[in-house]
């Protein structure tokens, strides 16, 4: 396997509603920063790939106009996934593994504020049996949450503790949208949204963009003092129908983690893409993380959840901490689909 590393990362601050900038104007400064920090001239970057969702924008091919932010002239080698940018990262990583290019720019963006996000997400569901009932993302997560609490004996207090910890840790992040000190008892006194989930169990609605640069081997060593090497990367998907899965365990995360080699060494920290509080606990269980593993020092998706970006952001946040020397070995995770249907796990290491 070829040595491939994340050599730079940039992300906009998550906001509830980006009223001023359109997607292109949101992406441009983030891409510029990631490219500048990478030390690789933009024209030398071998491959560009983005992750975004047309239904967020309400327009087909919206990702094509986002290319205005990149400057695709002379023509560039480019691709797109209609998914979270983490899967764009995966495609770029595969391209680098094939030896066709030595560097890649990965970016993703989403303005969830423009539409009714819970309704928009309903459109990712089976169009015959599920979508016509219009179950929203929070309702589906709540089904999973109750099943998880009932099977494991965890409590709503455990969920509130995840929310409080995430938003407290987010105080240290200038990118976070939702940060502060929240008292668990006060949180539990709030009404349910869709029981057993309360508002604090859910992610905020966020607009944002992120970008990172991958480089291989000697190029990475040349441009970055301490690259975040991707030692393992894998993703697995489960059946779509909720009633065909065990919603309380994430077998795809466990499998992806195994194949990515999570268990091969100590884990200093993990950035897990858990938009809902109970999902962090499910993912911890799947990856075998006890209380000793620091999870989501950035605050995670509970502190800022730009759709199509939040998964890539977990890789970026983990990579930054490795590059800064705050962690020697980190795990990053991204999810896609209802109730953790599809999961990607990566292992990042400093030298």
């Amino acid at each position, binding site marked *: 396997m070829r040595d491939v590393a994340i050599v730079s990362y940039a992300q906009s601050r998550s906001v509830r509603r980006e009223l001023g900038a359109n997607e292109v104007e949101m992406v441009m400064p983030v891409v510029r920063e990631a490219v500048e920090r990478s030390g690789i001239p933009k024209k030398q970057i071998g491959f560009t790939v983005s992750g975004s969702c047309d239904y967020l924008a309400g327009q087909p091919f919206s990702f094509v106009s986002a290319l205005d932010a990149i*400057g695709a002239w002379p023509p560039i080698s480019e691709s797109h996934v209609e998914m979270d940018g983490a899967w764009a990262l995966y495609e770029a990583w595969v391209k680098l593994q094939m030896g066709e290019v030595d560097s890649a720019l990965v970016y993703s963006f989403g303005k969830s504020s423009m539409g009714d996000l819970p309704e928009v997400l309903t459109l990712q569901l089976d169009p015959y049996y599920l979508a016509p009932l219009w179950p929203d993302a929070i309702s589906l997560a709540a089904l999973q949450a109750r099943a998880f609490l009932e099977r494991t004996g965890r409590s709503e207090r455990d969920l509130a503790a995840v929310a409080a910890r995430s938003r407290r840790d987010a105080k240290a992040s200038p990118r976070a949208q939702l940060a502060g000190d929240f008292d668990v008892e006060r949180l539990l006194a709030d009404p349910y949204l869709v029981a057993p989930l309360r508002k604090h169990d859910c992610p905020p609605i966020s607009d944002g963009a992120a970008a990172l640069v991958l480089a291989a081997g000697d190029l990475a060593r040349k441009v970055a003092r301490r690259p975040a090497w991707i030692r393992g990367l894998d993703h697995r998907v489960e059946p779509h129908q909720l009633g065909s899965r065990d919603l309380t365990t994430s077998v795809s995360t466990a499998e992806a983690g195994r194949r990515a080699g999570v268990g091969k060494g100590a884990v200093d920290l993990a950035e897990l893409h858990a938009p809902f509080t109970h999902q962090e606990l499910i993912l911890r269980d799947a990856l075998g993380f006890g209380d000793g593993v620091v999870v989501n020092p950035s605050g995670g998706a509970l502190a800022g959840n730009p759709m199509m970006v939040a998964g890539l952001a977990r890789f970026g946040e983990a990579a930054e901490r490795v590059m800064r020397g705050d962690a020697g070995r980190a795990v990053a995770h991204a999810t896609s689909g209802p109730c953790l249907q599809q999961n990607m796990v990566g292992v990042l290491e400093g030298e």
Partner: protein
Amino acid sequence: MSEAKPVRAISTPIRLEYSYTAGRASTRFLRGMAQGRILGQRCPECGKVYVPPRGSCATCGVPTEEEVEVTGKGTVTTFCIVRIPSENLSIPPPFTCAHILLDGADLPFFALIQECPFDQVRMGMRVEAVWVPKEELGPTFECIKHFRPIDEPDAAYETYKEHL
């Protein structure tokens, strides 16, 4: 109710509502429209003037901030004659739409040609914007109703061949 005909299809309509924001560049342009002005933006690297502006230069990938005002006069770079009727059309076909390169701009945009027999539109034809009455101006591209030919010799091919 007859069981004889098996269900072959299901109806699954979807309807989503969005609230778009114009973005910084489009906002400048639309506010210009409301004043009866056409405002573009110039790329600091290659110098291309975008009308309408998008906030970035698509070839350089950098923000465009310098504002450039252009008049409503321009050249038809290419055109098409629309013959297919559609429910949404307010004008009965056949009619002609064209790419209009405004004087001072580097990218043409798509617009309706009127006040001209549809089959007399040609590449190089000189045109001008026809605006709605002043009291109807607002932040919308529809302030320009259409383009009509003006009494000027056709532009030479050399002057617009790079913009096709």
